[in-house]
């Protein structure tokens, strides 16, 4: 019972955070801020995926969360490197 409430609370918090990030992503005027907002969205979505897996009691979603973490990290670094260097793989 208390677990259900805690899951709903955590999902609400991370969902609100996701909406805030989206709002900041639309409003930000510099590229660095936009990358930061996208990276934070990835982190929040990983938390939501794990909460979803707990709510349904399956461990299937861990691979999805792991893939999301890897893709988020690699895409952030690739975008930053593109801005810093002009190309990604030298």
């Amino acid at each position, binding site marked *: 019972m208390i677990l259900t409430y805690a899951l709903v609370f955590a999902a609400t918090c991370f969902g609100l955070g996701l909406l805030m990030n989206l709002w*900041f992503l639309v409003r930000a005027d510099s590229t660095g801020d936009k*990358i*930061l907002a996208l990276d934070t969205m990835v982190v929040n979505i990983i938390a939501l995926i794990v909460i979803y897996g707990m709510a349904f009691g399956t461990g299937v979603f*861990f691979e999805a*969360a792991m893939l999301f973490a890897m893709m988020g990290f690699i895409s952030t670094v690739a975008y930053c490197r593109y801005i*810093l260097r002009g190309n990604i793989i030298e």
Partner: protein
Amino acid sequence: MILDYVIAALLVIAGFFGLVGSFGLLKLPDQMTRLHAPTKATTLGVGGVLIASMVYFFGVAGTLSFHELMITLFLFLAAPITAFFIARVQLRNHVAERDLPNPAREGTRWAGHLGQDSSSD
């Protein structure tokens, strides 16, 4: 029963930290301070959720699963690197090269500022 309370406490703490991180991204005044909230508070929030999930599946299946620990480790390794790269992008886009300290090696220049000779002066 006790596990339920532990998981619930972890989830509430994690949700609070996640919300603080995202709110800080909106509220903090300038670009470099804005880097702090998402890379520290939100990472801690996700770590809390993953540990809660680990305890939950320990209660369900009776065995410790290491998937969550792997994701936690990866996120905690990735967050500082991400913050470093985004800080470099901010410095490259918004700070002139003459305002930066010199690189550690003599005779080299900061990578992002190469080819910006005409615009930096």
